[in-house]
C-alpha cells in the first residue's frame, strides 16, 4: 500500500506542481481555471446587460461593447465550455474505468499548459487594451487586413489555435484510454453511458477541430503573409471562411452537449436507483447525433443566399436531430418514472436541465427551418435559443455533475440547503433573464447592437433580462461559495455517499494518486450495484507506474503498460509552443525558428530512459 503511494505520489511543493501527470490534479487545475473564466465572462455579460437595460445606455461605447461580447463569446466557447468537458473527462474517465491514470499522462499535462496559454493569450492582451472586437466568429473581410488593423484579430485566432491543440490532445488521450484501458470484463456492451458520451464527444472533437485551426490559420496567413483566401478581388471568397468555421462550429455545440448528456444520464441512473432506461437506444441516438452534426453547418448560413435545394436538405437534416434528442429526453423521464428517485441537488439540476433545455431544443427546431430562420437569425431570438441550449443544456448538467462528483473529488459533501438556494437562483434567474429575449427577437431586436433608441420599445424586456441575469450570477456566486466552504467544513462523504453504480465510487474519496489498489473486474453495466464486494485482479506492479491495457471490444487483458511519470517537459514544450504562437502574430519567421525549441522540448519529453547500447557501432565500450 505505501509502496503504491511512493510509486505514484508527486514530489512535494512547487516542483511536484509543475511536473505532475496525475489526471486528477490536472483536471482540478483545469476546473479552477474554468471557474475563473466563467466568473470573468459572467461579469462581462452582466456589464453588457447593464448597458442594454435602458434605451440609449451610456455605460459603454461601441468599442467597449464590441470587445465585451467578443471576449464573452470567445471565453465561454473556447475557454469554458469545451475545456470544462475535457476536464471532466480527464478527471472521470480513469476513475470510471478503474484505471490508474490516462493513456498518455504527459499529454494531459501538456494539454492543460497549452489551455492556460490560450487563457493568457486572450486575457493578458485584454488587460493591456488589445482586445479582439469582432465577435467570436470574426468573419472576413471585417477581420481581414483591410478592415482590422493591429493585432486584435491575430490574438483571437492564435488563442483558438492554443485551445484547439489542447482540446485535441485531451481528446486523443480520452479516446485511447476508453478504447484500450477498460477494466477486464467491461466489454463495449457493458460500458457506462457516460463513457460512451465522452468517447463520442472526443471523436467529434478530432474530426471537427481541424476545421477551425485551418480556417484561423488561413485568416492569419491572409493578414501576415498576404495570402488571398478571403478577398474576392484576388479570387478568394468570404463565404469560404463561414463554411469552414461552421463545419467546426456546429459540431462544437454537440462536443459541449454530448458530455452533458453523459452527466445527466449518470445522475439520473444513480438517483433513480435503477440502470438507465433504453441504454442501447441512448447510445444509438448519441451516435446518430454525432454523425448528423457534421451535416448541418449550413443552417448557420441560411441568410447568405445559397441555393434553395441545399437549404431544404439542411432544414430536414437539422430538424431530424430532434428525433434522437427527443428520445433521450424520454429515456431520462422514463428512468425517473420507473425508478425510486431521490431528489438531491444533482437530481434537481437534471430537472432544471430538462425544463430549460427542451425550450432551447424547440426554438432550435424553429431556427432550423430555412425560411423562418431568415426572420430569426442574428436577432435576440437566436441569443435566447443558444443560451437555452448551451447554459440549459450543458452548464446546468455540468453544475449537477459538479454537485454529484464533488464528494468523490474532495471527500466532503456540499451543503444541500445552499445547493438548493443556488439551484433556484440560477435556474430561476436564467429563465427570467433569457426567456424575454425570444420576444425581443420577435420584436426585431438584432444581435450585437450596443444600443437602441427609446422609440423601439425594447427597454422593458431588456431591463427584465438584466434583472434575471443578475439573479443568475448571484446564484453562481452562492454555488462557488458553497463549494469553497464545503471544501473545509463539509461533512466527510466516505467513498460512496450516493450509492452510485459505477466504478469511481469504489475508490476512496478523494482517490489516492494511484486511484485503485487493485484492478476491478466488471460483470455488468452497473458494477457496484451487482456485488456488495468488488471483484478485483491483482498483479499490476506496485513499484513502477503501470496501467493495464485490454482489447478494444471485449476488454480482455493484453499487457501491462509502463505509464510515464512526472515530467517538466510537457510544461517546457507548452511554453515553447506558446512562444511560437505569440511570435507568429508578429512575423512568419517565428513559425520556423519557433519549431526548434519545440522540437527540443518534445524530444526530451519522449526520450526513453534506458541503458546505453551494448551492441552496434555506437555501443558503450568497457573501459
Amino acid at each position: 500500500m505505501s509502496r503504491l503511494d511512493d510509486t505514484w505520489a508527486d514530489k512535494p511543493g512547487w516542483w511536484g506542481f509543475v511536473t505532475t501527470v496525475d489526471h486528477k490534479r490536472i483536471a482540478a487545475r483545469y476546473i479552477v481555471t474554468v471557474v475563473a473564466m466563467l466568473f470573468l465572462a459572467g461579469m462581462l455579460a452582466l456589464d453588457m446587460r447593464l448597458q442594454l437595460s435602458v434605451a440609449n445606455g451610456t455605460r459603454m461605447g461601441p468599442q467597449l461593447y464590441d470587445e465585451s461580447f467578443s471576449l464573452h463569446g470567445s471565453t465561454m466557447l473556447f475557454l469554458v465550455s469545451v475545456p470544462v468537458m475535457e476536464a471532466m473527462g480527464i478527471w472521470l474517465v480513469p476513475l470510471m474505468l478503474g484505471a490508474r491514470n490516462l493513456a498518455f499522462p504527459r499529454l494531459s499535462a501538456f494539454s492543460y499548459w497549452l489551455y492556460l496559454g490560450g487563457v493568457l493569450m486572450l486575457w493578458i492582451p485584454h488587460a493591456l487594451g488589445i482586445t479582439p472586437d469582432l465577435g467570436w466568429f470574426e468573419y472576413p473581410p471585417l477581420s481581414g487586413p483591410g478592415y482590422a488593423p493591429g493585432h486584435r484579430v491575430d490574438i483571437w485566432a492564435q488563442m483558438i489555435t492554443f485551445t484547439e491543440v489542447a482540446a485535441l490532445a485531451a481528446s486523443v488521450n480520452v479516446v485511447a484510454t476508453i478504447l484500450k484501458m477498460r477494466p477486464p470484463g467491461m466489454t463495449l456492451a457493458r460500458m457506462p453511458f457516460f463513457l460512451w458520451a465522452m468517447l463520442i464527444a472526443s471523436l467529434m472533437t478530432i474530426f471537427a477541430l481541424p476545421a477551425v485551426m485551418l480556417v484561423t490559420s488561413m485568416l492569419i496567413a491572409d493578414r501576415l503573409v498576404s495570402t488571398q483566401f478571403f478577398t474576392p478581388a484576388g479570387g478568394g471568397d468570404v463565404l469560404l471562411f463561414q463554411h469552414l468555421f461552421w463545419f467546426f462550429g456546429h459540431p462544437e455545440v454537440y462536443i459541449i452537449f454530448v458530455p452533458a448528456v453523459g452527466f445527466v444520464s449518470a445522475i439520473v441512473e444513480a438517483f433513480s436507483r435503477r440502470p438507465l432506461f433504453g441504454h442501447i437506444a441512448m447510445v444509438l441516438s448519441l451516435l446518430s447525433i454525432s454523425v448528423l452534426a457534421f451535416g448541418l453547418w449550413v443552417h448557420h448560413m441560411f441568410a447568405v443566399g445559397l441555393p434553395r435545394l441545399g437549404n431544404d436538405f439542411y432544414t430536414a437534416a437539422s430538424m431530424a436531430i430532434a428525433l434522437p434528442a427527443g428520445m433521450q429526453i424520454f429515456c431520462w423521464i422514463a428512468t425517473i418514472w420507473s425508478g425510486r428517485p431521490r431528489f438531491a441537488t444533482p437530481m434537481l439540476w437534471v430537472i432544471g436541465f430538462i425544463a430549460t433545455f427542451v425550450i432551447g431544443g424547440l426554438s432550435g427546431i424553429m431556427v432550423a427551418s430555412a425560411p423562418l430562420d431568415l426572420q430569426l437569425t442574428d436577432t435576440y431570438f437566436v441569443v435566447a435559443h443558444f443560451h437555452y441550449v448551451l447554459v440549459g443544456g450543458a452548464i446546468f448538467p455540468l453544475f449537477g455533475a459538479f454537485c454529484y462528483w464533488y464528494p468523490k473529488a474532495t471527500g466532503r459533501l456540499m451543503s444541500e440547503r445552499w445547493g438548493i438556494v443556488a439551484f433556484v437562483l440560477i435556474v430561476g434567474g436564467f429563465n427570467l433573464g433569457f426567456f424575454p429575449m425570444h420576444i425581443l427577437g420577435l420584436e426585431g431586436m438584432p444581435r450585437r447592437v450596443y444600443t437602441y433608441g427609446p422609440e423601439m420599445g425594447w427597454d422593458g424586456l431588456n431591463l427584465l433580462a438584466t434583472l434575471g441575469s443578475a439573479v443568475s450570477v448571484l446564484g453562481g456566486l452562492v454555488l462557488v461559495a458553497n463549494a469553497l466552504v464545503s471544501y473545509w467544513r463539509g461533512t466527510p462523504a466516505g467513498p460512496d455517499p450516493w450509492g452510485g453504480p459505477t466504478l469511481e465510487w469504489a475508490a476512496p474519496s478523494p482517490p489516492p494518486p494511484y486511484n485503485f489498489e487493485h484492478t476491478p473486474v466488471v460483470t455488468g453495466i452497473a458494477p457496484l450495484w451487482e456485488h456488495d464486494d468488488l471483484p478485483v485482479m491483482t498483479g499490476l506492479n506496485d513499484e513502477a507506474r503501470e496501467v493495464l491495457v485490454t482489447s478494444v471490444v471485449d476488454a480482455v487483458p493484453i499487457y501491462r503498460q509502463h505509464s510515464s511519470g512526472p515530467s517538466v517537459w510537457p510544461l517546457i514544450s507548452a511554453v515553447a509552443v506558446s512562444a511560437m504562437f505569440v511570435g507568429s502574430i508578429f512575423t512568419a519567421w517565428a513559425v520556423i525558428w519557433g519549431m526548434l525549441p519545440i522540437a527540443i522540448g518534445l524530444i526530451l519529453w519522449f526520450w526513453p530512459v534506458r541503458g546505453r547500447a551494448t551492441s552496434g557501432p555506437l555501443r558503450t565500450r568497457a573501459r
Partner: protein
Amino acid sequence: MTAPRASRRVGDLSGLPESASGPRHLVWWGNIGFMLIEGTGFLLAAGVYLYLARQTPRWPPAGDMLPGLLWSGIFTVGLLASDIPNVWLLRRSHAKDVWAVRYGTALMTILGIALAVARWFELQHLGVRWDHDAYGSALWLLMVLHTTHVITDLGDTAVLSVWLFTHQVGDDQFADVGDNANYWSFVVLAWLPIYLLVYWVPRWM
C-alpha cells in the same frame, strides 16, 4: 455508504507481458488519433482548394503558370519508393530485429533528407507565389501542410535513429519504430491526392 468497499480477488495480472505490437499497443491508438486529426486537416485543405477552384471561371486564373512537373515527379517517385524500405522496417520492428530498426531508421533518415531536398526544389517550381492570388494561396496551403509533415516525420525518424544506436532497445521502442513507420506511410498516402490536386487538376480543368 461510507465504509470502504470490500474486495474479492478473482484473478492475477502479473503474468502478462510488458509490451505488445501493432494495434494491441496503447501508443498505436494515440498515433492513429493524431493521423485522424491531420488527415481531416488534409481533407479540409483539399476541400478549400476545390471550393476556390469552383468559384473561379479559369483554374489556374489567366496569367498564372502551371506548377512544374519535373521536381514534383522526382519527389513523388522518391516518396513512393521510400515506402518500400519503410514497410520492411515496419515488419522488422514487429519481429524485434535490433539491427534492422537501427539501420532501417538511419536509411529512412537519409531518404527523408533526400526527399526534403527534392521538395525544396519542387517548391521553387510551383510557378506562383502564395500572395499572388487565391489559386497561389490554396496551392501553397496544400504544399506547406504536406511539407510540414515530411519535415516533422524526418526529424522524428532522425532522433529515433540516434536513440536506437546509442541505447539498449526495449519492446516499447520497437513499437515506436512501428508507429513511426506507419506515420511515414500516412505521409506517403496523403501525398497522392495532393499531388493529383496540385499538379493534375489544373491541367485537366
